[in-house]
């Protein structure tokens, strides 16, 4: 049993924290795809990787910047931030520190784990190419604390290599907020892997005050592919405005999650498993937004396209709510979990998220209305060191906005999702007679 401190220095046990309604999977299914996931059947070894891609070309800082700018590479950790802008922000004059963030604290996402298991050398090549171009002082790899197979796969891959940049690996604390950039920089410094207030951007003063370039594992893998294959081949996938592809983690009830690679511009529905058809889904994970089936049916896999529909693709999670599962009940379980995942350091989050979870639970049970939920959402938003309260609020607001009829029904002691199910046995009996 592990313990942690809350802001008022009392000790709570981790066991008291609500479990995620979506467990962190012990297995993940990975399908071959058009870009990163092309050729995964040849294995994850360095030998197989070099046979497929050849040696890593050397680039200087300007060439790297031009390349990522021309294909408009965006970060894949959730914010879709332009990589070229990140490079521009990196303070010159001191050798930077590079970080591969593989902590993947989001239970509904498994894409980084999938990369560790199938494409570790693309991830490392991307970071090493940048390390060479930027004359990085060191490269840090942050491994997931609760996905041991993925961590082992990355360690195995690192041991196969002989890169000139010094590489250090770390293991993230198994906690939803541990992958947040500031929390990762804390981990590198040997302090608890929890968010702290950011007074200066990491690109200016991150690890040990050095300019720090921290990116998600998939972002590095995309960069690796771009450097190894060149702009033309990279941009052969996707659309003219959005080059390349992106990884999706698709939930499957009763089965391992499925990681697929979708080219930008693909119809989202073409990538969804059968059970997801006709059903709403939580897009972008536990800090994401609900989308109705009508929205998803018309959506393309596109960062600006989905933003236009009011949905952020985030880290590529599509968590479908299968038939019979009430989205309000699922969201309430997710918010219970997220409240327990607060680092417990910021008062409004530590106090506000459990209150928000309680208020949403009351809406689910029909014992309270959504007014208190909205009030608490406003009270926790933008009042913490990290985006955990903000992401939780985004989820709650999208629930209230997307499922207003279900929320009203629960207020009257009913559930539309459950009522829909009740039709099934009646029809079955009629058929049997």
């Amino acid at each position, binding site marked *: 049993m592990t313990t942690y401190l809350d*802001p*008022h220095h009392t000790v709570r046990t981790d066991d008291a924290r609500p479990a995620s309604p979506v467990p962190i999977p012990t297995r993940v299914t990975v399908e071959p795809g058009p870009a990163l996931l092309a050729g995964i059947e040849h294995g994850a070894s360095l030998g197989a990787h070099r046979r497929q891609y050849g040696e890593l070309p050397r680039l200087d800082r300007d060439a790297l910047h031009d390349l990522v700018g021309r294909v408009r590479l965006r970060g894949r950790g959730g914010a879709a931030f332009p990589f070229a802008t990140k490079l521009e922000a990196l303070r010159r004059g001191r050798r930077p520190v590079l970080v591969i963030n593989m902590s993947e604290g989001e239970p509904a996402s498994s894409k980084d784990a999938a990369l560790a298991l199938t494409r570790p050398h693309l991830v490392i090549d991307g970071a090493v190419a940048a390390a060479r171009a930027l004359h990085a002082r060191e490269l840090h790899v942050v491994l997931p604390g609760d996905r041991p197979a993925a961590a082992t796969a990355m360690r195995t891959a690192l041991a196969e290599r002989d890169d000139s940049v010094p590489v250090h690996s770390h293991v993230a604390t198994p906690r939803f907020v541990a992958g947040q950039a500031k929390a990762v920089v804390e981990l590198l410094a040997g302090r608890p892997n929890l968010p702290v*207030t950011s007074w200066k951007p990491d690109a200016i003063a991150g690890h040990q005050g050095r300019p720090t370039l921290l990116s998600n594992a998939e972002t590095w893998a995309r960069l690796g592919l771009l450097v190894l294959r060149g702009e033309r081949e990279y941009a052969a996938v996707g659309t003219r405005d959005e080059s390349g592809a992106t990884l999706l983690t698709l939930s499957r009830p009763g089965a391992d999650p499925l990681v697929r690679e979708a080219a930008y511009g693909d119809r989202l529905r073409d990538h969804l498993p059968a059970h997801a058809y006709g059903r709403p889904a939580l897009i972008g994970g536990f800090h994401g937004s609900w989308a109705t089936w009508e929205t998803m049916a018309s959506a393309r896999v596109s960062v600006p396209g989905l933003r236009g529909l009011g949905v952020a693709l985030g880290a590529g999670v599509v968590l479908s709510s299968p038939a019979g599962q009430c989205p309000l009940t699922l969201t309430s379980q997710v918010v219970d979990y997220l409240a327990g995942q607060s*680092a417990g*350091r*910021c*008062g*409004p989050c530590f106090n*506000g998220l459990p209150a928000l979870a309680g208020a949403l639970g009351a809406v689910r049970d029909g014992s309270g209305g959504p007014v208190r939920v909205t009030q608490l959402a406003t009270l926790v938003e933008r009042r913490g*060191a990290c985006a955990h309260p903000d992401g939780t609020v985004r989820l709650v607001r999208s629930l209230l906005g997307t499922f207003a009829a279900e929320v009203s029904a629960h207020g009257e002691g009913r559930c539309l999702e459950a009522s829909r199910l009740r039709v099934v046995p009646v029809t079955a009996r009629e058929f049997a007679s």
Partner: protein
Amino acid sequence: MSRQLRVDWPACRARGLCHEVLPDLVDLDEWGYPLVRGPVTDDLLADAQEAVRVCPRLALRLIDGR
């Protein structure tokens, strides 16, 4: 230039002195944590500096811009 009062949330322990010194700008939420209502205008600057100075947790900073 507009100035903002920023809270170092992990450091704050809801002691509430900021509200006492600067009631025009800082309210307290239902748990006693500060709700900063807007930018620090020139007429509030001296009080804001005082709030930063008296915070027992050193959890407030005056920063330029947003």
